[in-house]
């Protein structure tokens, strides 16, 4: 008993790991890193209150904290309806119960409640493993959060306390969101879950409007946008007023590569150049030098894990082929040499030496791998349907992609595959056209686009296909890339 307590005290991380390895495996998709519902620690998170002016932002705070913890996929949220009426807000609110010595021999000792206590939350009906409490105050025009986390298996408040920390934000909803996310990140760290705090999703949106050409035809302009991982702070990054697509972000988050139709003016009319790669600084939004290989199409840019080179697809001898250059376009080299359309090269982020790409060399577009020098090409999918949009999980163990297998041409679904086992696992099942999966830095979330009806929007989900959440709704949004924060 004592040993077990020591073990638990030594780190919840260890316990979660043990659960993962030894716990029962419920039915469903088994993805390393994705904790199954029955194996998740249960956390109780009562609504926090604010003193005075701080109360105004507490709806936003409570909503954010809850969705951050629930959306992490690492915790199970104990339902609020089961919580006791007396909710502690700080350590001093806890009152250990008094246990009386029995008067008669053999009688049970009597427990007298003196106020809120840990067992209110660990026992039925809440049955939580952990409890997050706290409160906010307005202090010097700032929002101050006092946040606490308790491990409910402990017998004293002092030994149960895992977090006791103060957070500062602006006295408004933005400040409430910030402190809620920071507190959530600290809680998640206790459970070994990686926080997505600071990570960004870059994507393509057509919401900036429609362009009318001199001949009267119209098309929706596409530009590159970015947003926080939860859909907040959506921001337009490019203003080319044409079709700008296929964003890629350097591993350090500083460079943004994408494809656009360079505009020039001839006889007073704007003319599209052939689609080419552009390089921008994320921070300043300025265009940097990138010399494209002279070709009718240069597309699908992707940075190497060291951030020093760029892979892309370029039409050489009439066929788009996998090529590589420095990030300014210098030292151009062709990698694949075959009569087929080959696009979307993606380098293994762990090894830097293996490339996934989409090739039609066997007929339909399929997922292939090769070494970065072009050697040992190997088809990873079965040859059925069309495959598109490969994305590596940051650890290089899994890959996500879009595939039409089992459906009509064009009806893509999201699949993932263990690169060791090579068995594809289908995560979406025909609800709309699902494409462009991109792994989150935590390795357990995916962002993807889904076209349902006429509208294409971005969604996140856990890598076992659960917890689907919509991030966008303005215009059409597609081709998301989930990048680490910098």
């Amino acid at each position, binding site marked *: 008993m004592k040993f077990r307590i020591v073990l638990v005290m030594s780190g919840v991380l260890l316990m979660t790991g043990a659960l993962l390895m030894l716990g029962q495996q419920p039915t469903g998709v088994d993805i390393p890193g994705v904790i199954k519902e029955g194996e998740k620690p249960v956390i109780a998170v009562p609504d926090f209150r604010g003193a005075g002016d701080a109360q105004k932002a507490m709806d936003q705070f409570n909503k954010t904290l809850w969705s951050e913890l629930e959306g992490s996929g690492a915790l199970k949220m104990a339902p609020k309806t089961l919580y006791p009426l007396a909710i502690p807000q700080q350590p001093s609110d806890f009152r250990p119960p008094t246990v009386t010595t029995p008067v008669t021999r053999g009688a049970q000792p009597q427990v007298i409640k003196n106020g809120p206590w840990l067992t209110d939350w660990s026992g039925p009906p809440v049955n939580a493993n952990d409890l997050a409490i706290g409160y906010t105050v307005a202090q010097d025009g700032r929002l101050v959060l006092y946040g606490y986390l308790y491990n409910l298996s402990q017998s004293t408040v002092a030994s149960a306390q895992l977090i006791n920390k103060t957070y500062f934000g602006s006295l408004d909803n933005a400040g409430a969101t910030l402190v809620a996310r920071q507190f959530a990140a600290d809680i998640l760290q206790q459970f070994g879950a990686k926080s997505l705090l600071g990570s960004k999703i870059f994507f393509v949106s057509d919401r900036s409007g429609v362009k009318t050409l001199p001949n009267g035809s119209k098309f929706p302009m596409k530009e590159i946008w970015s947003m926080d991982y939860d859909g907040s702070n959506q921001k337009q990054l490019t203003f080319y007023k044409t079709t700008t697509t296929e964003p890629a972000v350097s591993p350090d988050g500083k460079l943004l590569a994408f494809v656009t*139709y360079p505009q020039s003016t001839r006889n007073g009319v704007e003319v599209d150049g052939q689609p080419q790669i552009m390089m921008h600084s994320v921070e300043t939004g300025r265009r940097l030098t990138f010399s494209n290989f002279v070709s009718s199409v240069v597309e699908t840019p992707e940075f190497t894990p060291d951030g020093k080179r760029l892979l892309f697809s370029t039409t050489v001898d009439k066929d788009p082929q996998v090529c590589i250059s420095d990030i300014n376009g210098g030292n151009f080299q062709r990698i694949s040499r075959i009569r087929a359309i080959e696009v979307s090269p993606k380098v293994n982020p762990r090894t830097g030496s293996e490339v996934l790409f989409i090739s039609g060399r066997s007929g339909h*577009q399929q997922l292939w791998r090769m070494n970065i020098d072009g050697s040992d090409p190997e088809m990873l999918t079965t040859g059925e349907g*069309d495959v*598109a949009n490969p994305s590596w999980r940051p650890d290089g163990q899994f890959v996500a992609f879009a595939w039409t297998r089992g459906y009509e041409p*064009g009806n893509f679904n999201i699949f993932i595959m263990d690169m060791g086992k090579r068995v594809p696992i289908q995560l979406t099942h025909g609800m709309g056209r699902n494409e462009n999966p991109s792994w989150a830095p935590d390795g357990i979330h995916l962002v993807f686009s889904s076209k349902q009806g006429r509208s294409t929007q971005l969604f996140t989900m856990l890598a076992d296909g659960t917890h689907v959440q919509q991030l966008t709704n303005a215009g059409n949004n597609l081709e998301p890339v989930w990048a680490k924060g910098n």
Partner: protein
Amino acid sequence: MRIDQKTVRVAAMGALLLAAAACSKKAPIAPVLPPSAAASNAPPPSPPPPAKGVVPRIDVFMANPSSIQPGESSTLSWSVANATDITIDQNVGTVAANGTRDVFPNTTTTFTLAARGPGGMANRSVTIAVTSPPPPPPSAPKGPSVSGAEILSREAQDVYFDYDKSDIREDARQALTKDADLLRRIFATDPTFSVVIEGHCDERGSAEYNLGLGDRRASSAKDFLVQLGLPTDRIRTISYGKERPVCTDANEGCYQRNRRAHLAPAQ
């Protein structure tokens, strides 16, 4: 061996018998036929002699098309019964009971068919409307290249492709042959003119793949034009993949309209 020879002989006899049977069928034994049947057998068929006292009947007298532009033709067709003398005015003249004739009126003209027979006469008229061509485009404000652009936008035919293919189909061959004639005319009148061939795809493939496929389609169309003798340096290509669809419905009709190479002035 002997069996084989026997089989061969039997087969040969069978063939002879068959030939004999065929010959006997063709033997010129004229069957006795009733006169009417004999008449109907006699080629070519001619109209039955008009019965006395029956008024001529004009079953059909029409022009197709009924509306043309100057220089174009329309086909008159007719079918008349019970007439001995059939004429069409406007210099067409005497005609047979059934027939067709191409006519080339320069202005709207009414053709009248008159049929006379022992029982009297009958008339029917048909009018071919000749519409004047659309007025010539207003004189180009920016020199000849604009008019070349206008001609191209008005007359160039789109080139269509099969799903996931960039091969030139038979209908695409015809469209490109006409486009080649058109481009030759425009290139001859405007030495600065150049054309851009846009390659487009339907929405089913991925955006990245379609950029490659549209590129292949644009270059196959260009290659075909160059084979027909057009100058390669005056033809540019650009792939729009599935980014600039002409329609957005999810059905084969719309997919086909989007799987195209389109010729546009390169400005």
